[in-house]
């Protein structure tokens, strides 16, 4: 985290909370046998939505030696909201997160078909599309709490946008940008 930026505490207070990913730090918790974030999410969702709508909203995908936590990126004009036929998915204006009213979800899978990150999962057995709600009613998202590797971080929107910009710039101009991260 850069020192020049707005104070993180202040950012978190004033703005909506985002989850920033640092995939290079993720090792899928391979030595533990299970992914800590997935497990934490699973139990929290069961608590929050009941056993019918349980199941982890975060997923670790592996390719070669790279791990990537698949999680909702909370798009501004979210394609999954546009695609939702029953109107079950909507933008919660208070928290700024795209959330789901599972009672309305009928399992048409339009959102699964529209999510460009593949972050929405089809639960065929119980007929609903499960999506991360950002734990917007919690202080810290449970997956962030559980991650001991530093691959997930809770962050305010200003810092989030800064980190994203920096990372895109790094992708393009890599060696010429001095690292202010950490």
């Amino acid at each position, binding site marked *: 985290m850069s020192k020049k930026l707005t104070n993180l505490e202040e950012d978190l207070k004033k703005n909506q909370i985002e989850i920033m990913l*640092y995939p290079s730090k993720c090792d899928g918790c391979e030595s533990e046998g299970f992914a800590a974030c997935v497990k934490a999410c699973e139990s929290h969702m069961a608590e929050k939505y009941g056993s019918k709508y349980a199941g982890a909203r975060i997923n670790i995908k592996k390719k070669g030696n*790279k791990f990537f936590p698949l999680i909702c990126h909370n798009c501004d004009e979210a394609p999954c909201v546009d695609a*939702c036929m029953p*109107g079950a998915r909507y933008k919660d204006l208070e928290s700024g997160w795209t959330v789901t009213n599972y009672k309305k979800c009928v*399992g*048409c899978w339009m959102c*699964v078909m529209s999510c460009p990150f593949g972050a929405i999962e*089809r639960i065929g057995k119980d007929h609903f599309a499960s999506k991360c709600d950002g734990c917007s009613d919690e202080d810290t998202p449970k997956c962030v709490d559980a991650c001991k590797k530093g691959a997930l971080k809770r962050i305010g929107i200003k810092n989030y946008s800064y980190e*994203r910009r920096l990372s895109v710039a790094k992708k393009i*101009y890599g060696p010429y940008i001095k690292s202010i991260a950490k």
Partner: protein
Amino acid sequence: MKYVIIGNSYAGLSCADAIRRFDKSGEVVIISDENYRAYARPLISYYLEGKTTEETIWYKEDDYYEKNNFDLMLGKKVVSVDTSAKRLVLDDGSAVNYDKLFIGPGGTPFIPPTEGFNPDSPMMGTFTKFDDAKKMERAAKMSKRKEAIVVGGGLIGLKASEGLRALGLHTTIVELLPRVLGLALDEVSGNITSKKLNENGIDTATGETVTKINLDESGNPVSVLLKSGKELPADIVVVGVGVRPNVGFLEGSGIKIDRGIIVDKTMMTSVKDVYAGGDAAVIYDVINKRPNIIAIVPLACEEGRVAGTNMAGVYREYPGGMGLNSVEIYGLPIVTIGLTNPSNETQNVYVFQDDNIYRKLVYDGEVLVGAILLGDISGSGILSAIIRQGLKCLKYKDEFLNGNIYSFVIDNEFEIYNINEGYAIRGDFEDLPEFSRTNWR
């Protein structure tokens, strides 16, 4: 500023939301010819199945209109639009003035000329509105032999038959094309779908049409006669062939119409201050690279939003959309994206098939232009994003076919997020301009 919106469904409401985002005080009037507040129209078949109810079929929350300060006029049909005087005439003779108008009338069911079809009969009808579903619910109770015929094997027909089957009727789908969902699916996937339907008590008569509906003395159906000469018993006949843009009331308004309403990049019609969107608008099809009517929910919302933004005075362009659809038939999820039945020889098709899963990819050179996923649809959104953007991804062909669609996201997103190395991130820079110290800044 007075905004008037014709159509109280996906396009119209998305337009109203966009207007409210930029104009907090303007007057917004929404006109609908139905007597319900906005409901999830494609869900009427789920209503028959009981998966959605009278409580959950509503598209927006109960206080949506009051909260956003929208005036809702229900049960009012617009009969004509006078674009020079900026006035609408309703069916009760009253007039509504507007400063900016959005037209999102959707489609009206198309009924092929069939001898004996009588929409006034309680046992016959189309299947696009909530009232249609309620009519079929009543008809199913009255039906004695529990036999139903659904004309049309597209999405409407398929969902209607699923709903009727759930009400305990033996249903037969009569489809002109050689397979169900004929425009979206290919032969293999069509057959898998048909098999699934047949297993669940829905018969499919493909390559057939209904030539005549035999009626009893009160005008209700008894049986239908097929082109092949076969006669099938029928208590209920549902026609779900498709919809045509509902643009009849725009005659004489000066708005340019060619099948649907012609719009420009800002979703404005040929007349200033009149915008259009949804199932009745002709938009740019990014896959076929020509103007086209694409009647699906996601695009209706996008079009409505772009139109509403422009109506509120904030310039925004619509880049065009593509056809894609998702449906589940008795536990078998089906996703079709873009061009699924290529006619061009330069387009290559790659297929993966095992017992429960079918995947088909259509490539035009290195660019993915279409896909069918059956059985396993996880990650299908990544494919639709790739197809819509026209990304080159031939090297991912095998991974996509094996269902490992996430590898594309991992490769691309990983590099973008990966900022901890403090060092160059190796990626694919083919599309980026040559970079050197001298041309930077």
